[in-house]
């Protein structure tokens, strides 16, 4: 991936001394070179070591695309045009493929939304997890299998040695997600990316899975990047929140700051929708923009009550208005 060399750290890097990961000026696009469609317009992010960062955004916000960009597994036809992704001192966008492969699954691992679909249907789950373990640690087959069974047990899967020998389609939603978490933790990575890990699960199962993620990531000491469209899930799990909208970061800061004293009108709207005042029906007017249909200004301008010509003309830069609390808005 040849990406413009900008060595600058993310403006958010100040949130912690030497954050584990920080992204600055990430632009991802698709479509023909001469008429590219921007999926990510300007994404900034910082994940302190061992921290829990939640990225919340609705459809088309580019939250999942950010995860793919970090791991360098962007789908065909999608490319990172510019920006740096610094992880543990290295810029992932310039790393050679061989070294990048060592990081994928070894130092940064992914828990995806539909666990059953993300597992090879023709291999037993145990074999797949052991394969990842051996690929990164080089331990023997027996050792890898033992670690797999032990981890599955720790994640609450009954009869782990039997279930490890069964196939992905034997697992219910909740159990399959535990298998995916095991695969993500088998090599004790420094960062776990959970991309909508409980979307589509029933509330009771979602609660169980979130608890498993919470406990297991805490035990492994890894940092967590939780991506979700559900603000309530992010509020329950994360201590730092990043709000993204139509490919841009609008607000970033400690969870209680962002959720109790939100600066961006969009975040305020989302919070009202999550906890509407008694007897009221809360919503944000207007329509979610399609990628590539946005002008130069703030992506939320079209739906924002406080939008002025300045908002429509020029995308506001990220400004730090409170300690560790950034916002992209002209009006605060």
């Amino acid at each position: 991936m040849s990406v413009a060399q900008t060595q600058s750290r993310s403006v958010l890097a100040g949130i912690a001394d030497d954050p584990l990961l920080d992204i600055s000026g990430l632009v991802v696009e698709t479509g023909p070179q001469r008429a590219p469609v921007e999926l990510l317009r300007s994404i900034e992010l910082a994940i302190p070591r061992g921290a829990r960062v939640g990225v919340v955004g609705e459809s088309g916000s580019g939250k999942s695309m950010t995860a793919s960009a970090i791991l360098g597994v962007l789908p065909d036809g999608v490319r990172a045009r510019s920006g740096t992704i610094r992880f543990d001192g290295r810029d992932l966008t310039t790393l050679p493929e061989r070294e990048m492969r060592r990081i994928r699954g070894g130092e940064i691992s992914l828990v995806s939304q539909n666990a059953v679909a993300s597992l090879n249907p023709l291999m037993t789950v145990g074999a797949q997890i052991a394969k990842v373990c051996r690929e990164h640690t080089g331990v023997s087959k027996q050792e890898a299998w033992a670690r797999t069974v032990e981890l599955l047990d720790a994640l609450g899967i009954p009869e782990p040695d039997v279930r490890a020998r069964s196939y992905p389609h034997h697992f219910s939603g909740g159990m399959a997600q535990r298998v995916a978490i095991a695969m993500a933790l088998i090599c004790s990575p420094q960062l776990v990316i959970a991309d909508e890990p409980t979307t589509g699960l029933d509330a009771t199962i979602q609660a169980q899975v979130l608890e498993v993620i919470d406990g297991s990531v805490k035990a492994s000491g890894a940092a967590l990047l939780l991506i979700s469209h559900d603000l309530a899930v992010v509020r329950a799990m994360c201590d730092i929140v990043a709000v993204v909208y139509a490919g841009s970061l609008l607000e970033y800061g400690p969870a209680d700051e962002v959720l109790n004293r939100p600066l961006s009108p969009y975040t305020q709207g989302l919070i009202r929708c999550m906890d509407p005042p008694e007897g009221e029906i809360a919503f944000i007017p207007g329509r979610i923009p399609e990628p590539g249909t946005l002008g130069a200004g703030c992506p939320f301008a079209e739906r924002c009550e406080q939008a002025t010509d300045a908002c429509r003309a020029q995308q506001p830069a990220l400004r730090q208005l409170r300690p560790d609390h950034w916002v992209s808005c002209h009006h605060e």
Partner: protein
Amino acid sequence: MRRGFWLRYLGRRLLAAVLALFGVAVIVFVVTRLLGDPVELILGQRATPEQAAQLRAKLGYDDPLPQQFVRYIGDLVQGDLGVSNYTQRAVTDEIADRFPATLELALAGMFLGLLWTIPLGVLAAQRPGGWVDRVSRAIAEFGLAIPNFFFGLLLILLFAYVLGWAPAPVGELDIGATPPPRVTGMVVVDALLAGDLSTFSSALKYLALPAITLAVTSCPPILALTRTSMITALRGDYVRSARAFGLPQRTVRWYALKNSLVPVLTMSAMTFGFLVGNTVLVETVFSWPGVGLYSVQSMQRFDYAPVLGVVLLGSAIYILVYLLADLISMAIDPRVREGQT
């Protein structure tokens, strides 16, 4: 898998196969006895009314249909496919003599077919729209479009007449050459078994052109399916996840290949079963002494019992090969094993 399960599943599949074959027999019975006039079938158009009436009585075609049907199925079960009017030999024996030649041709055609369609399909899937993709699709489209007998003639024209590399299409061996002792009935194999290298190489030379004809004209659907199922596999969630977990490219590609193997296998089985029936024209062009040529010759001699015999044989092979593919895909894919898909 528990032994009991396999046996029960196998039993059920075999029963389904037998039922399917019974269905084919019913169709043959309906087409020949109900739609057409069986006596005219046997005596041909030149028979006089008296002869026809006499034969009808002798063969019991005046009996009520159910009775005829039971007798027809009874004969089939005992492997009695009737007698050839032309040679007065039992059709079963005539077919038994010739089938190995067709099988040899079909196997060779299939082998060559898989040799070029699967690798090309996998390569084309790596970069959809790339030159490999465009070239292989052009070849596939050509192979599908050109009638196999015409392609055979072109091969003869080019390789036999113009270049002289291949022998004239006179059959399995030079005219007058002594065939190797018959073990399997497949000349190439028997020659090899007898260690007779010169006959072996000559037999190979005769087998080449008809086999290439089948490989190019019957196997393109395998290339198309390999390509599409590989593309779907490579874009599947589990391949993206395998990449996200840093597995090497060859492991990722093996995941995709193994998953696209099941549909490709079924398509290959159907193509092989189909191929056996399809050799009719290729055998005619290359005067290849198989059941295909035999059925054409019988048609031209208005000797219909053999034709029906070959129809049943071709269908039986198709059903058997389809069953085989089903069993193999069961071994590969646990979901098929448990009747999920």
